[in-house]
């Protein structure tokens, strides 16, 4: 196992942890908005917000790690695919921040400051403002759906490399041998 063909263990751990957290928060987000007003709905909203702030924090850590550690060399593939992969990764990073930040701002604008895990009150970047809340809600939804689409594309491309091209791409992220 050569270090140049895999991401670092920390990068791999953050990738899978965040993959799980983001898919989880996305599904909870879809489910909770479909519920009628109830304790379950409020509980899920709070859990969703806590998860979002956790994702935001881990994403900041992940970006810092990514900027200070060289990723493995690109696997040989057509130039357009490489370009598409890199653009997708950059957009994913943008949305790792845009989705939770828009959700946080939406919550503040709606008049419900976030108290992380019910313990740590987080600051409000925007004041209570109904119209702004409606706008931020849309931003949050579209950003989340955008992130969802990118994740689907990212997973589909990875599976195509692994099972159609059989180039062992997944080993870079810790699955199977390099």
């Amino acid at each position, binding site marked *: 196992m050569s270090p140049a063909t895999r991401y670092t263990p920390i990068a791999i751990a953050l990738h899978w942890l965040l993959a799980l957290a983001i898919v989880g928060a996305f599904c909870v987000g879809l489910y909770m908005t479909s519920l009628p*007003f109830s*304790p379950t709905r409020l509980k899920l909203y709070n859990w969703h917000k806590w998860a979002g702030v956790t994702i935001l924090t881990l994403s900041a850590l992940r970006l810092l790690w990514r900027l200070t550690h060289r990723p493995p060399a690109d696997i040989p593939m057509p130039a357009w695919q490489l370009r598409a992969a890199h653009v997708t990764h950059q957009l994913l990073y943008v949305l790792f921040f845009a989705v939770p930040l828009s959700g946080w701002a939406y919550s503040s604008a709606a*008049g419900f400051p976030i108290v992380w895990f*019910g313990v740590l009150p987080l600051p409000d970047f925007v004041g209570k403002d109904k119209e702004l809340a409606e706008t931020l809600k849309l931003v949050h939804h579209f950003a989340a759906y955008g992130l969802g689409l990118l994740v689907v594309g990212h997973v589909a491309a990875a599976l195509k490399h692994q099972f159609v091209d059989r180039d062992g791409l997944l080993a870079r992220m810790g699955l199977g041998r390099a």
Partner: protein
Amino acid sequence: MKRLLSALLVATSALAAQAATLQPEKSELSFTFKQMGVPVDGKFKKFEAQLDFDAKKPEAGKIAFTVDLGSVSLGDASFDAELAKASWFDTKRNGKATFVSSGIKPTGPGKYDVAGKLTIKGAARDVVVPITLASGVAAGSVAIKRLDFKIGDGEWADTSMVANDVTVKFKLAFAGL
């Protein structure tokens, strides 16, 4: 001049002896509670008060306070619709909350403890409300337990979800006080 002054004095004291009238547009009634650790503020838009008070004889004073529970707002339509339901304020059957004083005790300059009965949703509790009175404005706050009045009953009774403690804050401006 002296005569005019004394006439004025008589006039003002006569006015003070009358019951003071609430100035709703200068008054506020709000409350704060925690929902999974998140502070949530609400307010009542409609309330009335009858005050009979003379600072020289505070013990003889009386206050009756009525709140239109249907005027509650948390500033969010889905929350407001929920609060009208039977498990919360049940505004169809319990339109009003009342507070009737039973005794006013001075505790310091411009400070009083107002004891009385608070009735919400048919449940009555004796409470003591500390208030400060300055330039016609009575202000103060009182802590109550929402479950004493079955506010948030049934599935909402879980206090880890919605805290039992509710702080009610008020600023009541009176004319003729």
